[in-house]
């Protein structure tokens, strides 16, 4: 591993100043489960590593039924799935947090880190998109907020500018009669990268029979995680039935433009989008009906 | 007398014979006797004073590492096989 400097600031201002003024490349260290590997394998380099785990805003987990969830960017996965409130309200987030690497990884890896790694296959990113989350970004010139679906711009790239730091992810309250689910396809049962992944969120009408609102997002089938807008819009007003889910899967496939690689062929991945959309919608609806 | 099983690729030298019965107390003797009957066969089986690398003698059902010095019983079968290692 190349040599680098290390700082562990305790305030956002200090962190953004360090990042903005760094000579050479500065990298943010949250759980380190991606960054340390990338530095070691020289896939990325760093002259300065800024450990943000001592900044209170990044370690904050704040949920209230009215306000929704504010999730500090560096909160490790286990704090999410060990939180009973979140288990009940954001099941897709729980699904995803549970399968980011193994248990040891989840002690360190964070949703914010997963987002900033900006892998097309990032397990939690589609969930943020499906749940309609926003990203809170701090920079030398103040804060800004962007929808999660706009955050990633290319494989490994995102819209963070020099000196900027992802502070938190804000989730709207889940809403009545809503449910969500994330499912990825991997050849093993754990410890794997998604061949394809789908997050679905639905809100049902009062009778619980018809889909009032839906958001479907796809992983590992495009250069960035994708919001399947056509499928999501089409679902509105449709009965919550297997036929509906299957058709939504067909529509979601249109958004997929995967590559063929060691994880699967483009044809296979596109096919999986259909399967996983169908399955996650069914599960989301089941959860919505509670 | 020991029976030598001729490896298939060497049967061009034995006129197609798959087994040949020859006199010999040791593998070395048997190969010499074979070579007298089928000239050229020793060249295929031996390099210098040893079996060619990549061949091993099997006497009856026993793989032996004694090579040309392996002793034969009167009714022994002699096979020339690839060596078996293992993981």
């Amino acid at each position, binding site marked *: *591993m*190349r*040599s*680098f*400097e*290390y700082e*562990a600031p305790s305030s956002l201002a200090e962190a953004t100043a360090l990042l903005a003024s760094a000579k050479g490349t500065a990298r943010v*260290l949250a*759980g*380190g*489960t991606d960054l*340390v*590997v990338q*530095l*070691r*394998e020289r896939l990325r380099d760093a002259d300065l*590593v800024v*450990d943000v*785990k001592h900044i209170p805003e990044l370690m904050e987990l704040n949920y209230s039924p009215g306000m929704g969830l504010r999730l500090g960017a560096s909160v*490790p996965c*286990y704090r999410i799935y060990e939180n009973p409130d979140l288990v009940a309200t954001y099941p897709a987030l729980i699904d995803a947090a549970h399968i980011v*690497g*193994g*248990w*040891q*990884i989840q*002690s*360190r890896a964070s949703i914010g880190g997963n987002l900033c790694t900006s892998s097309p296959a990032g397990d939690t990113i589609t969930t943020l998109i499906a749940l309609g989350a926003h990203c809170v970004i701090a920079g030398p010139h103040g804060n800004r907020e962007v929808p999660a679906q706009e955050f990633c711009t290319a494989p490994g790239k995102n819209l963070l500018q020099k000196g900027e730091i992802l502070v938190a992810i804000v989730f709207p309250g889940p809403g009545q009669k809503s449910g969500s689910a994330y499912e990825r396809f991997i050849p093993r*049962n*754990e*410890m794997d990268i998604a061949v394809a992944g789908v997050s679905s969120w639905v809100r049902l009408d009062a009778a619980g029979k018809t889909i009032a609102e839906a958001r479907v997002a796809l992983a590992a089938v495009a250069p960035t995680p994708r919001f399947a807008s056509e499928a999501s819009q089409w679902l509105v007003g449709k009965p919550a039935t297997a036929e509906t889910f299957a058709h939504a899967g067909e529509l979601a496939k249109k958004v997929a433009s995967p590559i063929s690689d060691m994880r699967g062929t483009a044809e296979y991945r596109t096919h999986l989008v259909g399967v996983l959309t169908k399955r996650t919608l069914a599960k989301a609806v089941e959860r919505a009906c509670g | 007398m020991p029976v030598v099983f001729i490896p298939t690729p060497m049967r061009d030298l034995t006129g197609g014979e798959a087994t040949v019965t020859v006199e010999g107390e040791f593998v070395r003797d048997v190969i010499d006797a074979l070579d007298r009957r089928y000239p050229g066969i020793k060249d295929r089986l031996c390099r210098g004073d040893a079996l060619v690398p990549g061949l091993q003698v099997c006497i009856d059902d026993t793989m032996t590492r004694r090579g040309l010095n392996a002793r034969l019983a009167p009714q022994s079968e002699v096979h020339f096989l690839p060596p078996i290692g293992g993981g």
Partner: protein
Amino acid sequence: MSKKTHVTATLNGETVEFLCEPRHSLLEVLRDTLQMTGAKEGCNNGNCGACTVMLNGRPVNSCLVLGVEAEGATLETVEGIASHAHLHPIQQCFLEGAALQCGICTPGFLIAAKALLEQNPNPSEHEIRFKLANNLCRCTGYDKIVKAVQAAALELQKAAP
């Protein structure tokens, strides 16, 4: 080479101090600087679990933690599992159940399994397999490891007040 940082941490109940460069992983620090070689390196990128240690009460891959991050932390390694010259029930169950062959993955499994049983004293077979999925073993086929964890769970429940 960047300057070394002074770090103070608690390791298996004792205060330790060490100097390390920012690029040194916690695994390197433990093994090379502190000479605690119980944690093993199998892949050095978080995929095999052989380097699992406890960091502030959570199991982590020490190859993915920087040594400098351990400032003020509480660490536990396989060397700290047995106490007062007695093996911990989980160690005893691994031995009695022949849950190891070459032994290289064993320290990581022991740490992960102990953490699991502390969190969930009565895990199902699926829960055991799910939580241990970040620990690779190539020798045993996992059968005897899972059974040893089940046996240890029973032992610990018997011992519990």
